[in-house]
């Protein structure tokens, strides 16, 4: 399941909090779905918080929408997504990755970013962020291949 965006390489890790579920069978549906992704090394699950940590093999060419598509295929939604990627991927694609906070990925070998776009945060949070980030013109455009991010503290 390669996405169209071949420049976004080497997602090393994705930490996903899924919304809309509390049962272990629902969680298992997500777990099994994430394991169907080609290049997944392992998936760790916290059943009580519905957090799924996906470790991927190097040299994959995945974008954040891969995780959104797979969680939604299982019947649920993403409430939070943090991906760990080489800093050069972000700094080399400034039209695709738009910062909302401070910090620069330029000199970072590896960086964790939280995605703030619709479908990557809860409905309530997205409504709030539309006001918070009203000055960022691209934020309200909801383009599927443009991601707004903040760098996560290490």
């Amino acid at each position, binding site marked *: 399941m390669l996405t169209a965006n071949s420049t976004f390489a080497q997602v090393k890790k994705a930490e996903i*909090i899924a919304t*809309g*579920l509390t049962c*272990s*069978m629902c969680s298992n549906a997500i777990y099994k779905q994430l394991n169907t992704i080609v290049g997944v090394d392992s998936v760790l699950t916290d059943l009580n918080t*519905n957090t799924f940590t996906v470790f991927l093999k190097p040299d994959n060419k995945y974008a954040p929408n891969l995780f959104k598509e797979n969680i939604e*295929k299982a*019947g649920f939604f993403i409430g939070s997504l943090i991906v760990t990627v080489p800093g050069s991927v972000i700094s080399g694609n400034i039209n695709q990755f738009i910062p909302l906070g401070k910090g620069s990925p330029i000199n970072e070998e590896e960086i964790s970013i939280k995605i703030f776009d619709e479908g990557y945060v809860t*409905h309530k949070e997205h409504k709030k962020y539309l006001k918070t980030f009203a000055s960022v013109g691209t934020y309200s455009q909801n383009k599927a291949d443009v991601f707004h991010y903040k760098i996560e503290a290490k």
Partner: protein
Amino acid sequence: MKKYLLSVGLLYIISFLGAQELFVVTDPASNMPAGSSNIRLSQSLFKELLEDGYNYHLMPEVSYGINKNLMVRAASFLSNRNNRLYLEGGSLFLKYRFFSSDDIHSHFRLAAYGRVSKNRADIHQEQIETMGHNSGAELGLIATKLVHKTAISSSISLEKATNNDPNYVFPETQDNTAINYSLSWGRLMYPKTYKSYKQTNINLMFEFLGQTLSDNRKTFIDGTAAIQFIVNSQSRIDLAYRKSLFSNMLRSAPNGIYLNFEYTFFNFKK
């Protein structure tokens, strides 16, 4: 004072009832995961009211998640009404989830569904039931709210019976159209804290199911209590008791038990 305590007690029970939404008799607004399939063996043993003995129904079902919003289910109906297990009919069911508002540990979802059924049993009651008794069709809407360990779901549907095969004509003296309505609660009782997918989950469920025939307004309301075991986060065992709470229509066997087994093949089609 006693009445007050009873009311508070009932409110307490009601507020904690419910739970997970994989109900025994009704469907929730949520769907199967896309590309996953499950098989279900539903069994019911209901006491005959008008004659001696029990009416046993066996319903093997196969469901499939076509995409994240649409699922299909094929069911076949077998019964012992003629003193041997006999294939009486089958049905095709489609459910489309058209609204979702999800949050951490909660969701509110809406779905529409439709069912068409064929049946070749004799028509022996006023109750219309396209799941195992009547040829016909049903169209309905479902709303489901899940908050933490409790789920509440409600549905309303229009059901129309036609003639059964091969020549069991639907009696002209009976009403062939009905409105169905349901209210279901489910609650995860065990475990309190999850440790692994291997833990058996126990759900407690209560469902109220009603039908009103559209012209003569004859009505029944049933209550169902169920305990459900989710094993290995992949299979499901339901044990339930259903009892008529009110009825002014002719029904052949309204009270009895269910014993269902279900197994899910996740990512049947990758």
